[in-house]
């Protein structure tokens, strides 16, 4: 029972972190390697707001999310939009930006574990005889809420539908008058905002460390490979697989094995079904 509960929490946490990455890829076919960097940046911004500027926590959170979304949008507008279409350049550029941000933060002082964000809810409750801290439950609930909201957004709002259309067929969407560039901008902003939301929810559980930037990137990549690049369902399923696998190894073996699980899962996926669980073998379909 305990395993089930913590497994679910772990999985949802994981899927939240991978969310921004999946969104951006599914819409603009761009792997946003700066995803991890944005995640950590948002946490840092919130910390700054609270500790250096003395702002109210809630306000800081809103600012943090907004700021990250703006950074993401700027990143697209100033840099990526100029090199759209040149795949090699796009990949290198997001990678370079992500690295610059993470290492910049490391150089700028984000070292050690002195940076923490307070939890929203203190204390814990007992579910079925097991103590779970409220923060984790909040993450669980929020995670579900975020997914629900996103699902509705994509289904029922005009922008959401437009984003979905571009994801399916950019050319046709453009012919229908959907401005691909603007929507890519929106998707980047949205993806960055989601990274921030995930960060804000999850970082209070630990401390803000620069390494997290890389770890988030690894997890997002792992989830994408296992679930299929750009596939929502795949991302969620993959998160659950990794989440539970991690928990089981932690319980039965030891904590060190966490990263290994990701590695093993990726290798197994690449061996058995390289395009991932819900990945479509689109390589050839795409262009002929």
């Amino acid at each position, binding site marked *: 029972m305990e395993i089930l509960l913590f497994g679910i929490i772990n999985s949802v946490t994981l899927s939240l972190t991978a969310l921004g990455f999946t969104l951006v890829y599914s819409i603009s*076919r761009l*792997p946003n*390697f700066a995803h991890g960097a944005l995640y950590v940046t948002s946490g840092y911004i919130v910390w700054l707001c609270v500790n250096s500027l003395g702002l109210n926590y809630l306000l800081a959170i809103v600012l943090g999310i907004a700021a990250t979304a703006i950074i993401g949008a700027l990143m697209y507008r*100033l*840099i990526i939009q*100029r*090199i759209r279409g040149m*795949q*090699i*350049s796009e*990949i*290198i*550029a997001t*990678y*370079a*930006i992500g*690295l*610059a941000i993470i*290492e*910049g933060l*490391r*150089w700028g002082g984000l070292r050690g574990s002195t940076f923490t964000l307070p939890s929203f809810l203190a204390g814990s409750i007992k579910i079925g005889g097991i103590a779970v801290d409220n923060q984790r439950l909040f993450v669980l609930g929020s995670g579900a809420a975020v997914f629900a909201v996103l699902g509705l957004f994509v289904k029922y709002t005009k922008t959401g539908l437009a984003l979905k259309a571009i994801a399916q067929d950019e050319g046709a969407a453009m012919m229908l008058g959907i401005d691909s560039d603007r929507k890519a901008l929106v998707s980047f902003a949205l993806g960055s905002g989601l990274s921030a939301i995930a960060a804000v929810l999850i970082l209070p559980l630990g401390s803000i460390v620069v390494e997290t930037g*890389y770890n988030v*990137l*690894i997890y997002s*990549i*792992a989830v*994408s*490979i296992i679930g299929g*690049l750009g596939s929502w369902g795949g991302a969620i399923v993959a998160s659950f697989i990794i989440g539970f696998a991690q928990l089981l190894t932690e319980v039965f073996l030891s904590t*060190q*094995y*966490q*990263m*290994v699980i*990701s*590695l093993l899962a*990726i*290798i197994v996926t*690449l*061996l058995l079904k*390289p*395009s991932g669980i819900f990945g479509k*073998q*689109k*390589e*050839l379909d*795409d*262009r*002929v």
Partner: protein
Amino acid sequence: MNDGRDRKERIDRGIKVRSDGLYAVSSLREMLYLSGPRILLIAGMLLLPLLLVPFPYWRRVINILCVYALLAIAFDFLANCVGLVCLGGSMFIGLGGYFAAVFNVHLHLPVYLSIPAAALAGAAVSTLLILPCLSLRGVYFAIVTLMYPLLFTRVIEAFDLLGGSNGITGLDSFPGSYLENYSILLVLLAVIFGLRRVLNADIGLVMHAVKDNDQSVRASGIDVVRIKALAVFIASFIGCLGGAYLAHVYMWAGLSLFALDFSIIPIAAVTIGGGGILFGAVVGCLILVPLSEFLRFFGTFRIVLYCTVLTAFIVFKSEGLMPYCTRKYQQFERWADA
């Protein structure tokens, strides 16, 4: 300045035209024009260790520069000749280095055997690890190569494998520092020449075709995955060779072999120096590696710097230093009527 004319045209210099083809042998001047830069560069590289005898620190830097150059060439080859963007060059250095350590320390192979063996082993493992994603979209290659070095570090640390955070010590060093310098320099030159020949041969054209139009290649009955695997093997062999060499220079193989520098400097070097011509990668390294030494004080800020410069070069679609210089050498510009 352009007296009302508004079209800039580029015309080959007279001497270039005269030295095209067989006519070059007709005059000393033309032959010098053609061979001058090449001889200068090669001679320069070979003389460098001798010139720096009074500065042993900088002679060390040359060794490291050559390793970076090998990585940069491998990246250039993969990205611009086959279309695969390798974001994790440090994977090759790490694999090569650790294999060399194992071969040398645990299996007692001498230096001149452990390095090639490590290169081969590293290349085989790299190719096997990357193989499954070669039949998928190019993006997968980038993602997977990005991830492997990050994962390897964490796994080695977590399991305390292969020496864990301390690494494997006790590797033999080179018998003589001149050997250390020149062996890698000669390897670098050999790699450049060798790769150039490969690229000019039919297989090189096939690889280029795979990058530009792989549907057509498939329709011609060629297994694209096999070609890509061959390219990955070649590139990883080169990278692992550098890694094995480096481990012997440091006499130690540790987690720092998977450092980010090894992944990002090659990419920056190729972008700055010019892609697709192999020598641009070397030029880029000639600039970046000494710079990296100077910037040691600034900690990881140097990575921020490389990344920013790299992004700037990409965004402004610069052709790179080497193509620029080549163009200036071969052509001149003037204004003409539209």
